[in-house]
C-alpha cells in the first residue's frame, strides 16, 4: 500500500502541484534509474528512460490505485518502457551487442564506470531475452518476490518463476569461469 505521505504527494500532484510530484521523483529516481540501467546497459538510455518513466507516470497518475505500492506501479512503467526500448533498438540493429562482446574480451576496466566483472555480468544480462532480463532485474536486483514481479510484468507468478529459471540457466552458462573474487 502507498505510504500516507506519498498519498498526499500523489493527491497534490493530481491537482496540478508539480512540486509535489518532484518530491516523488526525488524519492524514486534512483530505483527507476537502476532498473532502466540494468535493462538497457546504457547510462544515456537509462537517464532518458528514467525521465520518460516519470513523465508517463504523471500522465497516468489517475490510474494509480492506492492499494498497491507506488514503487511497484512505477517499476511497471519503467520495465514496460525499457521493453519497448529494447524492441526499438533491436529493429535498429543497435542493441548493445558490441558493448557486450567488448565486455567479455576486454580485461581492462572501463574507467570511471565499471570493473571487468561488472561489465561481464552486464554483458551476460544483455544477452538474455528482454522478459527474462526483466525477471532477473526485478527478483535479484530489486529483490521483489515472484508475486510482486508478476504484478509488475503483468503475467502469472508461474511465468515469472519459469523466466527466472530459464534466465539463471543461461546466465550460469555465460558466466562460467568468471572469478568471484
Amino acid at each position, binding site marked *: 500500500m502507498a505510504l500516507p505521505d506519498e498519498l498526499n504527494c500523489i493527491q497534490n500532484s493530481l491537482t496540478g502541484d508539480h512540486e509535489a510530484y518532484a518530491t516523488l521523483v526525488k524519492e524514486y*529516481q534512483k530505483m527507476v534509474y537502476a532498473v532502466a540501467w540494468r535493462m538497457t546497459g546504457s547510462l544515456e538510455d537509462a537517464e532518458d528512460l528514467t525521465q520518460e518513466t516519470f513523465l508517463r507516470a504523471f500522465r497516468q497518475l489517475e490510474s494509480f490505485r492506492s492499494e498497491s505500492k507506488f514503487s511497484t506501479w512505477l517499476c511497471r512503467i519503467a520495465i514496460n518502457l525499457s521493453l519497448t526500448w529494447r524492441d526499438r533498438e533491436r529493429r535498429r540493429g543497435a542493441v548493445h551487442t558490441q558493448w557486450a562482446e567488448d565486455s567479455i574480451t576486454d580485461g581492462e576496466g572501463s574507467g570511471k564506470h565499471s570493473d571487468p566483472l561488472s561489465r561481464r555480468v552486464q554483458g551476460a544480462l544483455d544477452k538474455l531475452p528482454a522478459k527474462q532480463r526483466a525477471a532477473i532485474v526485478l527478483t535479484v536486483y530489486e529483490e521483489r518476490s515472484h508475486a510482486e514481479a508478476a504484478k509488475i510484468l503483468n503475467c502469472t507468478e508461474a511465468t515469472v518463476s519459469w523466466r527466472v529459471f530459464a534466465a539463471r540457466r543461461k546466465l550460469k552458462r555465460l558466466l562460467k569461469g568468471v572469478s568471484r573474487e
Partner: protein
Amino acid sequence: MNDSDLTSLLKKARMPQPPDELWEELPGRVTQQLNRARHENIQPMRTSLPRWAWAMATALCVVLAFIAGHWHGQHAAEDTLASAKVVRETLAMFPNRVRAIVQDEHGLSLVLSENNDVPSSSPLYVHVCSGKQCGSVVTFSGQEIQVAGQKMTVLADGHDGVILVGNDFAWSSRDPAMAKNNLKIETKNLDIGKM
C-alpha cells in the same frame, strides 16, 4: 555454479554511478517538462510521427473541417465520422496511409503512417465515452488507437463485428456487455465498398 553463487555474483556487479548532478537536476527537468506541457496544452501523442507528417495532418485538418462543414446540414457534428462519404474522401487523399481519423473535444484530427503500409480493409467506426469524455475514431483492423482517454487495439472479427482490446478491458460488438469499466462503446463496420 549453484543459484546462490549466481545471485551473489550478479549482485557483485556494480552499476556505474551517474554524476551526482543527475539526482539534483532530474526532478527539475521532469517538472519543467510538465510545466511546459501544461502551458502549451500538449496532448499525449497517439503515434510517433515525423514533424512533416504532423504538418500535413494539420493541413488536412483544415480540409476535414471544410468537409465536416459541408456535411453539417446532413449530419450532427458527432456523426461526422459515421459518414462513409467523409471517410471515403479522406482515405482517397492518403491511400494506405491513414491509421485513424479522430474526432474528440478538440475537433477532427488525422493520424498518418510514415509509409503506405496501412493495409486496405474496411474502415471501422468506434465511438467511446468514458464518463463525460467521449471521442470517435475511424480506423482499421490491427491499429492501436487512443480515444476518450482509453488506449486500445481495434480488430475486425471477420463477421462485420468489431473487437476492442485495451490494457484492462476487452469488448466485442457481439457481446457488448463484456466491458467492465463503465465504458460506453458503439462500433460499426463502415465497409465503404458497399456504399
